[in-house]
């Protein structure tokens, strides 16, 4: 008995070979006649990459703070929590960038992926794209995906130099990593939202209600 797999592939092959000239000539990895040869139509902008990124980030209802040095991240977080009336409790991703920060005593720091007490999470972006104001986070030992979606409020540390113009640039940069592709590669553009009740946009559907970027040099 032939398997479903073989039957399907046989039918597909017959369909393609049966109609003369209907099998494409483009190689899947580029090559001639493939659409990725020429540069794709995509948004253009004038001005700096950073300005475009921040403009799009805010258009997506996210916010940001510039932080002078990595060491200043803890005080910025404390201020953010206070300004937004949030309890002084923070879940920190096990990222190497965040390991040696000195957190003030009044802040309760937790780690791990336990959904209990996951009000505010702090993670690190692997890249960002100016095209749409999007953060890129790859799952891995330093970056649990759970934090990015279960937290009520999501804080993300982003290095300025990691901002790239387009998604194509993100691919080119991530492909160089030995562990690419990660299990879950998340493009995040603003906080969670839904328009399922009367086509009216409402933030905070299932994921974070707010998204805040801490921009470091």
């Amino acid at each position, binding site marked *: 008995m032939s398997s479903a*797999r073989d039957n399907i592939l046989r039918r597909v092959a017959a369909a393609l070979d049966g109609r003369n000239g209907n*099998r494409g000539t483009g190689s899947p990895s580029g090559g001639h006649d493939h*659409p990725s040869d020429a540069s794709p139509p995509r948004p253009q902008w004038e001005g700096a990459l950073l300005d475009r990124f921040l403009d799009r980030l805010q258009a997506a209802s996210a916010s940001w703070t510039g932080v002078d040095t990595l060491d200043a991240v803890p005080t910025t977080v404390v201020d953010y929590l206070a300004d937004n009336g949030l309890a002084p409790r923070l879940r920190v991703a096990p990222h190497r960038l965040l390991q040696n920060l000195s957190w003030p005593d009044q802040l309760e720091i937790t780690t791990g992926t336990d959904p209990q007490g996951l009000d505010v999470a702090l993670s690190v972006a692997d890249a960002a794209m100016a095209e749409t104001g999007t953060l890129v986070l790859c799952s891995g030992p330093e970056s*649990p995906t759970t934090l990015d979606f279960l937290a009520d409020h999501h804080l993300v540390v982003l290095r300025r130099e990691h901002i790239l113009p387009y998604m194509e640039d993100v691919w080119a940069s991530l492909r160089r990593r030995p562990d690419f592709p990660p299990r879950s590669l998340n493009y995040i553009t603003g*906080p969670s*939202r839904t328009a399922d009740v009367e086509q009216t946009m409402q933030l905070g*559907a299932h994921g974070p209600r707010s998204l805040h970027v801490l921009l470091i040099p």
Partner: protein
Amino acid sequence: MQLSPERFRSQAQAALRDPTLQQALSRARSGFIDKRRKGIHDIADFEALRERGRRIRDLALSQLDHHLEQLESAVRAAGGQVHWAENDAQAREIILGLCRQADAQRVTKSKSMVGEEIAINPALEAAGLDVVETDLGEYIIQLAQEPPSHIIAPAVHKTRQQISELFDTHHHQGALKARLREIPELVNEAREVLRDKFLSADVGITGANFLVAETGSIVLVTNEGNADLTHTLPRMHIAVAGIDKVVPTLDDATTLLRLLGRSATGQAMSCYTTFVTGPRRADDPDGPGEFHLVLLDNGRSRMLAGPYREMLRCIRCGACMNHCPVYSAIGGHAYGWVYPGPMGSVLTPLFRGLENTRDLPNACTLNGRCASVCPVKIPLPDLLRQLRAEQFRRNITDSRTRWGLRLWGALARRPALYALSTGLAGRLLRLLGGKRGRIRRLPLAGGWTASRDFPAPQGPGFRQQWKKRQTERKPV
């Protein structure tokens, strides 16, 4: 009520007479169109982007077998498993088997049109599983026990009052006496109820917006983040997708994503676009232990061989229905099956058989708006016309229409007879129109004149005018 594409006529009539539905539809109508129009602004040459999208999909389909095999080995290399289903029954069997293997009790689902196509929910429920839809719109219609009426906004036909009532019944046992509630309150309540389900699910089922052959990734696009909680938290992730969804490279997926968001909701990028590749890695702190991809044919390879191949380019954005005057008058349920609007009027006959879906290819004015907005340039009106011709050839067209077409054909091929009969008909209509020049009730077309007057023809007919023009133009 059991909906069926065979009962399109009566379902459409019922929809037109349903004031609540009409209220919901009128709210949605302009919203979708405005959002897309604003959304495509930031790309100077959107037409070139559409053309590129069309070429990417065509090329992917033209080497589909190759891409499917490449996809399969990439998924396996990432530690996932690939299952092949020739039809809906096989797909249900595979998914049910996997759920049993995982010893599952609760299954969370992220909105999937293929999931609807194979009717996975009733199958899992019949096996005693607790199935929870997690997209808010899909959750609402699951509570209402209705099918989706739109491919990206499944509860577009529900008003806030109706949603308040559903939540009252299911979350408060009627204690709120169905009072009308505000949107933030409703969204928050659903968030809380569904959060518990996410955390206690054993299996998460998602669809896939695209499959990427080079990396073995599935692409999930949402605004709510429900797909990510669905694939990250449970022990097992099952993704189910049609074999048509494959694209060769990540860059190809990128181009299609630029088209998808803008065409669907006017967003340059949806909130969450995720590329999932295989199960949790050895040193990952979270993610499912198993990843399964179920690839569904269900008639797609047949479409690939025939004259409707172009339909397989569809990326399920919903723009065609958002711009369709018929859809926006009757909503999605009237179409009677999973896929509504213009794309559904082509797909449903191809999936379910032309003889069971007689009215669908005819429920179209051939105005062409759908084709002009389709991000992958599917010539929907041409495909519908082709289906009509096939209906006629295969004797499926109803006898009244057949006789009408025959009669017209006979007249059109005999110019003298044509001139005589159209001249007579014109005079008769003028007579019926009287001084006002409008006809209140037209015999044999009572449906048309029920909601508007028929204007009686004015002045001489086209042929007469043409003749006159030709003589006047003659060189002296």
